[in-house]
């Protein structure tokens, strides 16, 4: 298919994207590394100089940091667990002979298209609000005291909201994979005498492993960077109860205006992302052809 002339043209055409992405990767990252070793605070511009590892040790010694790491992992793990388990169940349900599969899908995928601040705002105000929210109204109806979601269970509330947003994505991917399973395989299994549970375990589930892998990978990439929902609802509070690593970096950068520290946090986030990516790729690499 290729000849010399077309190959030369091809290289030229890939160049802009590669250059753009390369600059996008290298320049900001290099700057972040540089800043992480400096003393640089927007509020004290006179104090300047080499910080060595001080910014990093601040993080490692700060209990808020370890809380943030925990929260980040809780967020990612929690959302993954909820979305995949329920995603499979809902996908199985919709794949059954049901009326109106089209409208069903539309209803189920809707949360994904609601922008994060709106999603968070809806849940926080219309549902979880202790005075005016629906949950409060339900509690009153039963004579219970309304739960102070954002105050008492901030991280769980955030996890719940994000899971609601991402459940459609998982469901859609898994449903697509489910529907790509040829009915002939299942029919052959039925003729071989396999009951429904076995058919699920030995044929359906293995077929879906690949797409489950993809869901885990893609969602992890996005979940590590969740920001809008936290900004809109708890601002990382109360205190630091619902602060994740990205949010902590944001607080350092924009609120404390400590550039050096925020940069160090950023590098730690990159390291964390790479560790997660490494383990993910390793354990799931076998499930993918690509």
């Amino acid at each position, binding site marked *: *298919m290729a*000849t*010399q*002339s077309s190959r030369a043209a091809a290289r030229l055409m890939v160049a802009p994207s590669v250059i753009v992405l390369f600059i996008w990767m290298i320049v900001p990252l290099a700057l972040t590394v540089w800043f992480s070793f400096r003393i640089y605070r927007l509020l004290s511009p006179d104090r300047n100089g080499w910080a060595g590892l001080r910014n990093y040790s601040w993080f490692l010694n700060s209990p808020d940091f370890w809380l943030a790491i925990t929260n980040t992992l809780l967020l990612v793990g929690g959302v993954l667990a909820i979305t995949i388990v329920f995603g499979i169940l809902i996908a199985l349900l919709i794949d059954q002979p049901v009326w109106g599969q089209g409208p069903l899908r539309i209803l189920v995928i809707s949360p994904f298209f609601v922008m994060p601040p709106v999603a968070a705002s809806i849940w926080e105000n219309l549902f979880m609000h202790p005075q005016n929210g629906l949950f409060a109204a339900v509690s009153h109806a039963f004579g219970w005291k309304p739960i102070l979601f954002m105050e008492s269970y901030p991280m769980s509330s955030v996890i719940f909201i994000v899971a609601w947003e991402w459940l459609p994505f998982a469901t859609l991917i898994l449903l697509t994979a489910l529907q790509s399973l040829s009915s002939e395989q299942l029919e052959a299994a039925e003729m071989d005498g396999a009951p429904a549970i076995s058919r699920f375990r030995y044929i359906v589930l293995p077929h879906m492993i690949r797409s489950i892998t993809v869901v885990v990978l893609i969602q992890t990439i996005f979940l590590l960077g969740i920001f809008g929902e936290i900004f809109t609802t708890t601002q990382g509070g109360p205190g630091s109860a619902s602060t994740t690593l990205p949010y902590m970096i944001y607080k350092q950068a924009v609120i404390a205006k400590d550039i050096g520290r925020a940069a160090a946090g950023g590098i730690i986030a990159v390291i964390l992302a790479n560790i997660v990516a490494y383990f993910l790729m390793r354990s799931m690499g076998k499930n993918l052809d690509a």
Partner: protein
Amino acid sequence: MGKIVLKSVRKSFGEVDVIPGVNLTIDNGDFVVFVGPSGCGKSTLLRLIAGLEDTTSGNIEIDGKDATALPPAKRGLAMVFQSYALYPHMTVRKNIMFPLKMAGMDIGEATKRADAAANVLNLTAYMERRPGQLSGGQRQRVAIGRAIVREPAAFLFDEPLSNLDAALRVSMRQEITELHQQLKTTMIYVTHDQVEAMTMADKIVVLNAGRIEQVGSPLELYNKPDNTFVAGFIGSPKMNLIEGAEAAKLGAKTIGVRPEHLDVVSSGGWEGVVGLSEHLGSDTFLKVETTQVGTVNVRASGEMMMRHGDKIHLQPQAGKTHRFGTDGKAMA
């Protein structure tokens, strides 16, 4: 117009030498068929001539000029692809006129040519349709029409009939042959079907693993195969190739007798028992287990009431036994 010469053309993909080296002359007006088993390099050779692949080394001359470095657009050749490769978003008319548009031809002239080509190919009624609305045979003709309007030095066909059903294949085969008689342009045709090769070609090039095994007219290849490969490839059912004692008797490593050259006799010759028998009415095909030469296929004319288990005697016709030496090549 239409003389193509390949000089020591070599093509490798990375480490693999797909075509170790080919020398070939195609004269103007020839209908040349490249034939061989899957993976023998025939399509690769065609694509090298077309310019869709670069040669690793060697020269390709078209009408005396070195075309090795020329891109496909500048070689003056036209290609009909196996999948027809019609432009799905254009009407038949636009498809056929596309090459003329690329050449910058005046639209009036281009329309005339397109209509003429459509006429030859019985496509006039379909000019405003899209490829998606056409049958396989019609699409095939549009692809040919697109090639004809360019009045190329040579036509290149890459297994054009493979995607058609059997009956359509036979009629399209004849149409292409008639087209060649009409246009008298060089045609290079690639196929794995040796029946197509035998019926259509002026000259057949038999390829095996990137090497030319033999070049010749259909009857030359049939009557005088150069080696066991060609002997076994040309002719259906395959020539019976026999080794062992019977071959040694004639001073050869291998002897070959075509199924149609074995006579059924009442006694003598090779003795055997009928294994399978296929009765087509016009011919009878028998698979016989013989004592002297193992399993052989026999083709007898007309009906022959032989069945599984019957005893039979076979005798090769005089002068129709081919002898091949230890190197696989034909012995004089």
